[in-house]
């Protein structure tokens, strides 16, 4: 029973009073910022990242993980109450969640989301504990070509999941890869695309790009004339407890959502987005109440919320075992690990068992805190959601400015953030989604490195990517993902799914 022993190690780390406190603080802060309309996990984590720099590695990562699910759950709260999803993964929750709120069942919807998330989080954490170690062993067999193909798959998935034109999403990925190469070239040591600026010698910081493109440009977009952000809390939250009928109706969707979300969350590039969309569509097909979907069906909240949270946990698997971040949030987590002096990858489990298992156990504790914290505090979150945007955004801007400065104590990062804010807004106006670009940005240098090594080992023969079974399988999956977009039924769902996100 190695698993129990390992979880014991983890519990010993995660359950120390100080780490419990950081976990709680993370969940609380994450929810606090996550409920602010328009702020998703990426923006929240990049804003709060500097706070964790001074902590010891385990505490920092525990807190960041807490911030992650906190902000995700906060996003669901905003989706249900004011129809404003903070991020793509909670878009589907708005469909039925907001309708439930309009029917005066906001409390029930929130409880359903919390229960679904908690159950899914528990299962997915167990899955993570079970499958991460064997996967890390598989990861040791990964050659450079396999890593390269894995990243291709991740980028393809992020393109397929982006809304708007496929061509432009691919363009954004290529652009992100290029931007990621700014700085020193690892192999030759020479400077590339730095315009002679010493501040660019180490490349552009990922957080700088994230804050610019997700923080600043989002603010500018919300200041557009005619956008009144009219979402209002429709009614007072009266009862939180679901009825007996509700309980009965939510069980199966939660189970199915958990399963789908866990599996799809492992796929690179998707994180929790794919799971929540898939779970919603599946329920709509299977449910005998399918006519109620879109009009406040409880299944339409339970399934995607469970999937969303399960995916959030299992998306840690590729990052912790392979060291490859599969979405912008994981890229931030990987960045935080590197700042703490830990190289994410298969070695983490064996070299830092306390850290690895501590994080896993803290995930479950964090999920527990979410339930304990969120239901009683719902009144506070509602009040925060009601804070008018005109007070919110100057505060966000101030946090971004000071936060981005504190990364390197450099004014230059503030200028870069402003530049990316400008660029990000331009791309939003042109319907080019920034998320794939951000993922590509972090993967750029890694991809180049693995491409170089793969080609060096194969003596310049590109067939190596098809000859190695792992690599070939991953590339095949990428090809299937691209082809899916051209199947009319799928592309229609893709359009529909993103229609509300705008």
């Amino acid at each position, binding site marked *: 029973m190695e698993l129990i022993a390992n979880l014991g190690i983890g519990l010993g780390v995660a359950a120390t009073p100080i780490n419990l406190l950081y976990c709680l603080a993370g969940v609380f802060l994450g929810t606090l910022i996550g409920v602010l309309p328009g702020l998703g996990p990426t923006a929240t984590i990049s804003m709060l990242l*500097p*706070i964790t720099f*001074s902590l010891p590695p385990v505490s920092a990562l525990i807190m960041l993980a807490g911030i992650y699910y906190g902000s995700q759950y906060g996003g669901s709260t905003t989706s249900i109450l004011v129809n404003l999803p903070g991020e793509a993964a909670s878009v589907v929750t708005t469909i039925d969640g907001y309708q439930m709120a309009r029917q005066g069942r906001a409390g029930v919807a929130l409880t359903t989301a919390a229960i679904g998330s908690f159950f899914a989080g528990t299962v997915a954490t167990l899955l993570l504990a079970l499958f991460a170690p064997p996967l890390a062993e598989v990861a040791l067999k990964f050659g450079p070509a396999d890593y390269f193909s894995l990243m291709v798959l991740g980028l393809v998935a992020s393109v397929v999941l982006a809304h708007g*034109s496929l*061509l*432009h999403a*691919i*363009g954004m990925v*290529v*652009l992100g890869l*290029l931007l990621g*190469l700014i700085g020193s*070239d690892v*192999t*030759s040591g*020479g400077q*590339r*695309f730095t315009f002679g600026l010493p501040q660019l010698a180490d490349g552009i910081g990922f957080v700088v790009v994230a804050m610019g493109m997700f923080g*600043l440009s989002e*603010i*500018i*977009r*919300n*200041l*557009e*004339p005619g956008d009144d952000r009219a979402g209002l809390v429709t009614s007072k939250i009266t009862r939180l407890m679901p009825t007996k009928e509700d309980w009965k109706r939510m069980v199966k969707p939660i189970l199915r959502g958990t399963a789908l979300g866990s599996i799809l969350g492992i796929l690179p590039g998707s994180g929790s987005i794919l799971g929540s969309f898939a779970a919603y569509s599946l329920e709509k097909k299977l449910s005998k109440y399918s006519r109620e979907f879109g009009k406040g069906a409880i299944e339409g909240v339970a399934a995607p919320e469970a999937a969303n949270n399960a995916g959030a946990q299992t998306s840690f698997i590729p990052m912790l075992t392979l060291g490859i971040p599969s979405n912008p949030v994981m890229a931030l987590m990987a960045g935080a690990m590197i700042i703490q002096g830990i190289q994410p990858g298969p070695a983490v489990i064996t070299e830092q068992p306390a850290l690895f298992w501590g994080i896993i156990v803290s995930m479950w504790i964090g999920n527990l805190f979410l339930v304990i914290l969120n239901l009683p505090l719902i009144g506070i979150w509602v009040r925060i959601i009601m804070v*008018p*945007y*005109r*007070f919110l955004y*100057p*505060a966000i*801007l*101030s*946090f971004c*400015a*000071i936060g981005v*400065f*504190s990364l390197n*104590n450099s*004014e230059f990062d*503030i*200028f870069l*953030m*402003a530049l990316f*804010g*400008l660029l990000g807004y*331009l791309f939003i*106006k*042109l*319907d*080019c989604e920034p998320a794939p670009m951000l993922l590509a940005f972090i993967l750029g240098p890694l991809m*180049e490195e693995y*491409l*170089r090594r793969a*080609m*060096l080992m194969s*003596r*310049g023969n*590109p067939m190596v990517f098809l000859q190695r079974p792992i690599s070939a399988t991953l590339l095949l999956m990428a090809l299937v993902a691209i082809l899916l977009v051209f199947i009319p039924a799928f592309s229609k769902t893709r359009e529909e799914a993103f229609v509300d996100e705008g």
Partner: protein
Amino acid sequence: MTSPIRSMKEFLTGIIYMTIGSGAVLISVLGDYKIGNAVKMGPAYFPMVLSFILIFIGLISLIRSFIKPGTPIGAFAVNGLVLVIIPTVLFGLLARKLGIIVMLPFLVIVSSYASRQFRWGPALALAVGMTIFCTLIFIKGLGVPLPILGSWFGG
């Protein structure tokens, strides 16, 4: 609508992709980055490949913009752009010189002004509140090395 451009979004995206792509090629050539070969890739190999892909995507986008009608770009938040970006840059330029006791209220008030519901009272209150809060959390608590009172005031 006499313009042959049927989708401004496609057109501009195409231009941006092509500009950045050719810019990267140009920098690589001018900076004399080595391309190398497939076995031993030089610093310019991967960026060159990416740049040409980007130029190609830009080109397709450009061609499409004359064929497929698109939705209009919509009004730009000019107010928002100017009143968010400029004070942020000024904050970066002057935070050490004037200190955050000047620059934070400046950032908060100027950016608040971008909202159509701007009122002096609440904006001033927010500025004061944010300055106190950020000073306590970031400067005192987390030790971010930004002066409260900048070097121009002898701080």
